[in-house]
């Protein structure tokens, strides 16, 4: 992308800069001589009876420094950008600087991640430093969609419920994070039939998970389920190869109730998770994947239990392990009893 709208501006800037530098030196030379008109070091004029203006010489070191700054400016402009669009002999750019910083950061972090690279997910989940890094990576990269606690919200999967759209094995999680996912359900209304057929089918789907449903309508919708079984499986158990959710559990990513199911059948879904390969190195992806994997191992049910908090504290400890053990051995008072 060009710096200026028209190429002539670059020349204008370059010429102005050069002229200004030359003008500074010219000014210095032109002012170098002064006339002595009075013998008391003043300009010779008197105002208001006794006000005079001194005409002191400038210290020579000041002039020398001034010249040095002009010389420095000339050298700088040769090496760095400043004369219009000219990039300078060193080829410095701020994006290049950023890249250098990032490379240096990666080199500094490499030994840390090298240690993690050789660890299995269970070991990573038990390692305090790994989980600390994993949590920080998660909070920076993933929490925008999946929430700071990783439990998601409507349309953004809950990573802690041990229910996986694409598979919950560690390697699958790594693949999901690296390449992203596109959860696409095509609109099925045409294949199902009329609007009433769609509603019946929705009731049947609700019945699969023992959610509140209308039994007669569900019966009528049952034969229509064949078109759904192609992706969602015979009993609606889901298909992780396709990312098709398990319809027979109580976890509803896109909302619960007939309206949500009807909308899914009629309009379909296209839920996209962006690929994170651009944001994280493969080592980092591994660590954050281990963190995500550990989330679902820590959570048992949705209810708050003391055991859960203890497990969470054991799994994710801080820098001082001594304090951590004190924390877990003491009564976990991190939660308040229900009021």
């Amino acid at each position, binding site marked *: 992308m060009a710096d200026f709208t028209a190429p002539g501006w670059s020349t204008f800037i370059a010429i102005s800069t050069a002229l200004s530098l030359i003008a500074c030196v010219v000014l210095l030379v032109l*002012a*170098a*001589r*002064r*006339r*002595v*008109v*009075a*013998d008391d*070091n003043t300009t*010779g004029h008197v105002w208001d009876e006794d006000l005079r203006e001194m*005409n*002191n*010489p*400038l*210290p*020579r*070191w*000041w*002039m020398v420094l001034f010249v040095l700054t002009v010389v420095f400016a000339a050298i700088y402009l040769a090496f760095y950008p400043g004369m219009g669009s000219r990039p300078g002999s060193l080829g410095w750019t701020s994006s290049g600087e950023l890249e250098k910083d990032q490379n240096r950061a990666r080199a500094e972090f490499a030994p840390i991640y090298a240690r993690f690279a050789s660890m299995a997910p269970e070991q990573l989940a038990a390692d305090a430093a790994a989980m600390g890094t994993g*949590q*920080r990576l998660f*909070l920076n990269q993933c*929490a*925008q*969609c*999946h*929430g*700071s*606690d*990783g*439990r*998601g*919200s*409507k349309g*953004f999967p809950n990573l802690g419920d041990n229910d996986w759209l694409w598979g919950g094995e560690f390697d699958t999680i790594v693949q999901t994070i690296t390449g992203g996912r596109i959860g696409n359900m095509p609109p099925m209304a045409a294949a199902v039939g009329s609007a009433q057929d769609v509603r019946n089918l929705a009731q049947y789907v609700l019945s699969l998970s023992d959610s509140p449903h209308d039994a007669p309508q569900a019966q009528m919708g049952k034969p229509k389920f064949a078109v759904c079984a192609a992706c969602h499986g015979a009993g609606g158990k889901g298909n992780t190869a396709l990312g098709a959710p398990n319809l027979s559990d*109580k*976890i509803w990513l896109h909302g619960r109730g007939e309206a949500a199911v009807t909308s899914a059948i009629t309009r379909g879904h296209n839920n996209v998770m962006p690929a994170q390969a651009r944001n994280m190195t493969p080592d980092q992806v591994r660590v954050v994947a281990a963190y995500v994997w550990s989330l679902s191992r820590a959570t048992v049910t*949705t209810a*708050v239990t003391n055991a859960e*908090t203890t497990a*969470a*504290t054991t799994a*994710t*400890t*801080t*820098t*001082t392990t001594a*304090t*951590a053990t004190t*924390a877990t051995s003491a009564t976990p*008072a*991190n*939660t*308040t009893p*229900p*009021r």
Partner: protein
Amino acid sequence: MTTPVPATSALPANQREEVIWLYQKSPKIQPRTVHGWFAGWRWALVWATQLVFYGLPWLLWNDRQAVLFDLEARRFFIFGLVLYPQDFIYLTGLLIVSAYALFLFTTVAGRLWCGYACPQTVYTEIFLWIESRIEGDRMQRIKRDAASWSVQKLLRKGGKHLAWGTVALWTGFTFVGYFTPIRSLGVAVWSFGLGPWQSFWIALYSLATYGNAGWLREQVCLYMCPYARFQSAMFDHDTLIIGYDEKRGEPRGTRAKRGTDANRPLGDCIDCGLCVQVCPTGIDIRQGLQYACIGCAACVDVCDGVMDKMRTPRGLIRYDTQAGLEQAQPASARWNRVLRPRVLVYSAVLVVITAALGTSLLVRPTFRVDVERDRGVMARTVEDGWVENVYRMHLMNNTEAPQRYRVAVQGLPGAQVELRGPAQAGPAQARWVPLVVRIPPQAAAALGSGAHAITFQIDPWTDSSRAEKSSFVVPR
């Protein structure tokens, strides 16, 4: 000041113009060494300030350096105090206190900072002392400067610059030692393992010390420092300045003249010129108060010495107020004017701000906490109809002991708090802890949709708990 321009006899009708170069090399000022009461105070302050500056980085506290400004980790340690960048207000407070203190004692007694405590003066004093030890006293130095180069001169000058360079390097090293632990910095220097930035800063600060104290000296005071120029705003007629008592001293002259003109007795000033010789900025105080006078009182000391030899009372050049010098007031009148409105106002402001700063440091909480609503999730309904809101708790441990925290929520009937991370912070550590507040479906229905105000109580066990306001959203 600088060399006066060669005088021309300016006859009004026939102005002879002489064209000279605007940029003049300032003559080197070789101040004469002086001993006396005020010189003693100046040296006492040199010792005091430099003992603190050079000594403080070597002190230890809890196995770490007592005074350390760790820029990389963004923590600033001052003995037991752990300061975060969020605590910059204390630095601001300190600067305000310094400014008002400066205004106060300048209004009362003139340029005390310049003459006694300013680093420029202090380092110039140290470098001058080195110069006088190696090159000799004033006359010897002037003669040597005028002499041609010889082995002796080379050795003396070279030795002096070497000594200056060593002091400058040690100063630079100490300065960087406030930001990198000085012991490990010393090891790095010894083993040639200095990082590029450390080397740069040590070199820069050393160069600045060497240049300012060795070469520039009074040029800083005369041309660079703004303090000289706005002193007229801080002085008034009752400010103690260093002044020459004209009434007592004039007409000046050497005593040999005494006999020649008995009708015009001479004043106490014998025109020895010592007050000019000792002046580090090269002025003649007998011309009156000048911006270039830094108030070092060297002329006071030397003139008092001369007065002693002449067996006349001391104080021909003395600290006095302008009003006192003009009207020859006694000392008591001077004291009466010390507590004038300006001084009282400065003192009051100074006391208030110092008290505020001190109190706020004393009652500083042991931790800081911010509870922010999660940016990703506004509210979520989970299985069984419970409504959850997600928050991030940002904890900042202000102490060097690890802390644990307990979180409770108020203002929400039926609410449960669930931490989704360990509510702990290590020494001087800052961390995020995600947490969730959930209410049962009946409570959600009772509250109704929308945002409801709640308060978090975060309890660190070792201190009183802090309240943080937030909101809980029930989705439609």
